[in-house]
């Protein structure tokens, strides 16, 4: 089933066009990787979906609803959680308060309790540090907190912006393991990454953005073998 569908989406920052009529589909239960170099428009795409930036033209459909009619905070209530680049936690608040805020849109106490349980089950480290202020967590823990917060919103679709950024290889592996686990529990994931290999390994399908255009898409295994992917990351000399 088609969960999210971007049709001919264009976005501009002032006179500079960041996205040129891109099309993108996310099916229920998938992990989609959105790859591309710095400034290719990956983060822009995510920010457009969560309505943080205005759209020039095109459509964003989510479960048959037109997301363009929503505001950032009402998008969350629709079941879309956005884990922003650089984690975007509230460093001055405690871990628990970070999670509490993410539960803002969850109205049923019972559901909230279930969410806490599943989060702490997935991230036992966070349970240990519940009263610690989030700014004092390590980079990896902060990333976990950011993902945990997304889970607290009861999301069906999780948008992740470079979860591996600034993390050591071991932690990156850990993050990706957790993402796969979350996906298995039924959350669809749209993942923006520079770490192409890692991202494609857990993804079902992938898209490659270049200068605001989608230049490649296909199943993860196809993309993994596509020499253009390798070129994009290590240049022509790799051949």
């Amino acid at each position, binding site marked *: 089933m088609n969960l999210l569908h971007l049709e001919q989406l264009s976005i501009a920052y002032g006179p500079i066009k960041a996205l040129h009529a891109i099309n993108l589909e996310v099916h229920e239960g998938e992990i989609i990787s959105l790859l591309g170099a710095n400034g290719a428009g990956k983060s822009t795409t995510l920010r457009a979906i969560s309505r943080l930036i205005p759209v020039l033209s095109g459509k964003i459909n989510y479960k048959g609803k037109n997301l363009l009619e929503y*505001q950032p*905070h009402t998008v969350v209530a629709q079941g879309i959680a956005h884990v*922003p680049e650089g984690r975007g936690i*509230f*460093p001055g*608040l405690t871990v628990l*308060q970070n999670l509490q805020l*993410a539960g803002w849109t969850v109205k049923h106490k019972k559901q909230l309790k279930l969410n806490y349980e599943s989060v702490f089950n997935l991230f036992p480290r966070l349970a240990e540090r519940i009263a610690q202020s989030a700014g004092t967590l390590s980079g990896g823990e902060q990333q976990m907190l950011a993902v945990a917060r997304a889970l607290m919103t009861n999301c069906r679709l999780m948008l992740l912006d470079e979860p591996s950024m600034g993390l050591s290889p071991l932690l990156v592996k850990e993050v990706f393991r957790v993402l796969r686990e979350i996906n298995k529990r039924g959350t669809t994931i749209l993942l923006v990454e520079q770490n192409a290999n890692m991202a494609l390994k857990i993804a079902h399908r992938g898209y490659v953005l270049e200068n605001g255009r989608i230049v490649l898409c296909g199943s993860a295994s196809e993309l993994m073998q596509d020499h253009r992917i390798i070129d994009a990351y290590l240049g022509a000399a790799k051949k």
Partner: protein
Amino acid sequence: MIYTIIQQMFNAIQLGAVYALIALGYTMVYGILRMINFAHGDIFMCGAFIGFLLATKIGLPLWLMLPMAMCLTALLGVIIERIAYRRLRTAQKMSLVITALGVGIFLENFVMLMVGPATKQLPQQLPGSIVQWFFKYNITVTWDRIWIIIISLVLMAVLWLFVNRTLMGTAMRAVADNKDIVPLMGININQVIAVTFAVGSALAAAGGIFYGQSYSIDPYMGIDLGWKAFIAAVIGGIGSIEGAVLGAFLLSGVEIFTVAYLSSNLKNGISFGLLIILLLIRPNGIMGKPILKKV
């Protein structure tokens, strides 16, 4: 000698309570929007006059007048934010500050037109009788002052609980922490900001009414007291609730003792001197957190 000092300290605490109630509004708005709400002193003045009108025209008793005036002033604060500030939230900061200055001047002149420039006296609604126990030691303390201090402290405590113990309070601190991320939690940031302005304005109204219990009120009083409260907020570390209260009592103490032992003419100079010295030594105030410079 010691009794006069106690007497002065008592005066300082009463003035400090008023300063603190106003300073909290400054500090909350600054904490969230990084904006000095220059109109806040005038909101305080409006609160006092709303209380004055409720008490004289309708004849409400204090226990009814105070909450009503607080609600009406809160509404005023929210309306000001909605009309004048919201559109400028993403604009350059100077336009926001200038707009706030404009709102302040508008409120002063508007109230002046409505009630005239003459000073007014809020009707005495609290018992003005002298506390006998203190009088034994030659300290004149009236019951209304005691009540004012108690109610102010209760309001501050309620605010502290609200900010630190409720989800809305956490959301307010989250906006202060990282404004861009708040909508991603499903939180309506406009709502949080409106609540902040409402709470800040309500406290200022309480401050205005308490001020009016002991001093006369006039349409321009907001400028002077607003600045004093603002200094208090900065001294304490703007953005910090505990800091605002601490700064308010510190400033009122300095002022009262300057007037008592030096000269009333030096009052403003010394309080502003204190502000400047503190800012140069500790730019973030006593309780403030340093702001990281990001490249």
